[in-house]
């Protein structure tokens, strides 16, 4: 049952909490610079502040996009999923390296275009990858796969972190991530990134899902292929 506190729904509380966390962390990191004399450590901390603020800004931007999905700002067009995955890997590579993590991609499909919005699909894969980075260890890379399906393609991102609780898995299978899951799915997660991804996927007429592995989770999006020929 949805819990309301003075007219504020639990989803809003989850969002507020999720955004409060990076703000308080940035404050602590900035204050801790004063205690540090080692230039290398100061530079490291400054990089962490930048990385934390960028992630928070990206999340705020995505939330604004969720609120504006019906404004007709996001056109559907044929896009190349491989290229978008490569763009995401390229942008996140430094962040993965910074966190001593690795991301690898494996494309098993023929190069096909899908019907999607470039920015929204980029955000979906970005959120999946950040989620995977958060839960993968140093020894286990996060993996992006593109596979053919019956009527389209599947882009999935696999991690080797703790499994999602069965109750949450069932809820997502049945209803999708229709709200931020304030019960928290895994350590450090409110499910906000997945909620954002699922809204974008729904807008693009795709299908959002997840697969529980014995040693981790894959989040995926299924999208219809475009009949337009790829000239790329």
């Amino acid at each position, binding site marked *: 049952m949805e819990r309301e506190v003075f007219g504020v729904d639990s989803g809003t509380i989850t969002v507020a*909490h999720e955004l*409060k*966390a*990076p*703000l*308080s*962390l940035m*404050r*602590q*990191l900035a*204050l*801790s610079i*004063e*205690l540090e004399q080692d230039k290398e*450590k100061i530079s*490291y*901390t400054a990089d*962490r502040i930048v990385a*934390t603020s960028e992630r928070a800004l990206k999340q705020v931007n995505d939330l604004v996009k969720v609120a504006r999905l019906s404004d007709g700002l996001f056109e559907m067009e044929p896009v190349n999923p491989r290229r978008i995955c490569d763009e995401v890997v390229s942008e996140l590579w430094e962040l993965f390296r910074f*966190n001593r993590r690795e991301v690898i991609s494996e494309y098993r499909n023929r190069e096909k275009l899908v019907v999607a919005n470039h920015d929204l699909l980029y955000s979906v894969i970005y959120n999946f990858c950040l989620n995977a980075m*958060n839960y993968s260890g140093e020894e286990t890379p996060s993996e992006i796969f593109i596979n053919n399906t019956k009527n389209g393609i599947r882009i999935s991102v696999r991690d080797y972190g703790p499994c999602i609780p069965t109750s949450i898995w069932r809820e997502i299978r049945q209803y999708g991530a229709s709200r931020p899951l304030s019960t*928290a*799915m*895994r*350590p*450090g*997660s409110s499910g906000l990134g997945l909620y954002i991804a699922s809204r974008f996927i729904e807008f693009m007429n795709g299908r959002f899902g997840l697969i529980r592995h014995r040693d981790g989770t894959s989040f995926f999006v299924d999208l219809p292929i475009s009949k337009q020929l790829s000239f790329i």
Partner: protein
Amino acid sequence: MIMIIDDDKGWLDYYRNLLKNFDIELFRDGVAAIQRMDKEVPKLILLDILLTGPTGFSILSEMQSYPELANIPIFVVSSVDLSATSLQKYGVKEIFNKSTMLPQNLLARVREYLNA
């Protein structure tokens, strides 16, 4: 050993750096932390309250049920406003609010408790 329990990776990295001169062990969930306490009893625990799975309150209650864990000093470090009096019965010595605390204060209190 100082045990730090927080499910946010960013905060664990922060503690790792701030407390780099101490013997620390980091945990993202309470179950693993309690299991670890079976092998080694920490001298101090830094505990977040809003955790996935068992919350900080559950960990505090669980610890109270074991005599060998009941007297470990605990600092609660959380973004939730908490009352000190309600947590004293759990062995909580200090409460730090993540939004307003100063790292030098946290460091000073850690040193103080480890030297006591």
